[in-house]
């Protein structure tokens, strides 16, 4: 039982990181119908940005703040203006392929321009262990979980409670009516992209201490986050949280109880089962077919 709890709790912190990345997916999907196949690389790049700032001598929180600014410009504004805006009207296929191209370029650009090796990354949390009823929890696990959870909840509160957030939702649901109502649609869509960029930097800060900064770290993270987003419901931000936690926990349990070789298949199996019974995801809303 203690083993189970142990695995469960460390799975939660991994799951929280998946949730952060998955939240980015659902946000972009809701606001602009964009699937960003470079989402994993959107986490990898800020990790290297922070690393670069820290190499210049900035403390971790300062480099975090600088990276947030840089990420909003590059991964938010530039990505939207340069790639999504021109391709938006051509449907899904060109955007998917362009973001695939982007992920190849980002991954290999970092490899060629920075380094192909894995770089250690300082943890935000002190090296401390808690012992609760026989279960050992590291401060890093706890902190990651709490931090990610708070971020997801803040994002949600922002979308659901503030005027800006509600305007963003209106844009997501019906762009035309939103613009008739006097909502500045392009600005709202930009906000979504900016939030996605900020979440990516946060995910980078939480995930890199365990996984190390490496040019291809985005690959598996991106896939897991995709599955998490779909399991929870692609058109629902709360779904991203649920999906992320489910994938994180199940993966950890499966690696211990079934076989580590098939650990990567766990997200997949859950995904298949969910899609079979609820194609729109656990918390997703059904979308009507259009003739």
């Amino acid at each position, binding site marked *: 039982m203690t083993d189970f709890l142990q695995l469960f709790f460390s799975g939660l912190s991994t799951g929280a990181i998946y949730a952060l990345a998955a939240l980015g997916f659902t946000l972009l*999907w809701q606001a602009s119908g964009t*699937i960003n*196949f470079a989402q994993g690389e959107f986490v990898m790049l800020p990790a290297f940005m922070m690393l670069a700032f820290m190499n210049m001598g900035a403390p971790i929180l300062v480099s975090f703040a600088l990276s947030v600014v840089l990420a909003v410009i590059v991964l938010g504004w530039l990505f939207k203006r*340069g*790639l999504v805006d*021109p*391709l938006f009207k*051509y449907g*899904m*296929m*060109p*955007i*998917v*392929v*362009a973001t*695939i*191209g*982007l*992920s*190849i*370029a*980002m*991954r*290999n*650009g970092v*490899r*060629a*321009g920075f380094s192909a090796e894995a770089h250690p990354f300082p943890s935000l949390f002190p090296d401390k262990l808690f012992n609760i009823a026989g279960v050992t929890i590291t401060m890093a696990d706890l902190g990651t979980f709490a931090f990610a959870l708070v971020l997801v909840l803040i994002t949600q509160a922002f979308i659901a409670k503030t005027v800006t957030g509600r305007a963003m939702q209106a844009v997501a649901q019906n762009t035309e009516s939103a613009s008739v109502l006097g909502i500045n649609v392009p600005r709202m869509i930009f906000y979504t992209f900016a939030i996605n960029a900020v979440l990516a930097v946060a995910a980078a800060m939480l995930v890199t201490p365990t996984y190390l900064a490496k040019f291809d770290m985005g*690959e598996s993270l991106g*896939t897991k986050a*995709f*599955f998490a987003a*779909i399991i929870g419901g*692609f058109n629902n931000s709360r779904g991203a949280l649920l999906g992320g936690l489910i994938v994180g926990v199940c993966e950890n349990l499966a690696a211990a109880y079934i076989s580590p*070789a*098939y650990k*990567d*298949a766990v997200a*997949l199996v859950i*995904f*298949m089962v969910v*899609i*079979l019974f609820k*194609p729109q995801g656990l918390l997703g809303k059904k979308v009507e*077919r259009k*003739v």
Partner: protein
Amino acid sequence: MKKSTLIISLVSALLLLIVPNFLKNYGIYLLTTWLVFIIATMGLNLTVGYAGQKSLGQAAFFGIGAYTVAILMKAGISFWIGLPAAALMCFVLGVILGFPALRVQTIYLAFATLGFNTAVWLVMRNEEWLTGGTFGINNIARPGLFGYSLEGNLPYYYFVLGVTVILALLLAALLRSPWGKAFTALRDNPIRAESLGVDIRTYTLLSFAIGAVYAGIAGALFASLVQFIEPAPFTVAASIMMYLMVVVGGPGYFLGPVIGSAVGVLLPEWLRFAQAWYLFIFGAAVVLLMIWLPDGLLSIPERLRARRLAKEASAARQASGLAAQQAQTAKPREVQPGEAA
């Protein structure tokens, strides 16, 4: 067939027949790889470009074809039985993979197929008794044909070229048949297609199954080409690459896969001069290409035609406007007979 098309096809046929004679082994190998990918992406073009099903699992069928042939040949069975076996295997699995497509569409379908690819890859990597795991299967022989050995690189190239042409003709015939029309109807508007009596179920499944057969045959040829297979060429990344080839070439264009595979297989090789940066340049090129030509490279002629038509139309408009103006200034408008009354 138009004269220009005829000339272009004759010239390219000659080039495909003659050029390999002047290439070194690596060049021939690259060209053969290109042909293999043309076959695989022709199938994917049917599924994605013509039938409109977002499939990201093509490399799985590619791998299944390769492993089927390799395993059968290791068991002492001829390539000529292995090839149809691979095709059949992929057909059956293609039908099975089609089932999620009846329930989910667009991006969900893309991920369902991507998941299928992951599952197949995990089996290839972990079931050592069957697939050799990460060690793979080596010493896969090349087949003989009517007593000729295809062991050499050049004969094998011509063999693959022949298969590619046959499969392309078959696909062209299929697309001209009522089936082909049904596929495009399915892509353009599934609900309308259904109301017109197209059996969506059957055609969705068939689009996956036939696409998978092409990938399976490509995989079988690939196994014999490289003579050593392991799970790496059949990952999700490979599927994504094939999808990229189809879209870059031009989905729903018959020759799209030919151009797209050239971009995916040959372009990175040409970019090797950039050394460590070559994949970065490749990725960036794909992004720019998409922004410039969202409908793929083969949409260029259509674009030019549209531009010419627009130019002609505006010239005609201007000319007629000018003529009308002149007519008005030259003399007061005459009353046409019957108009006054």
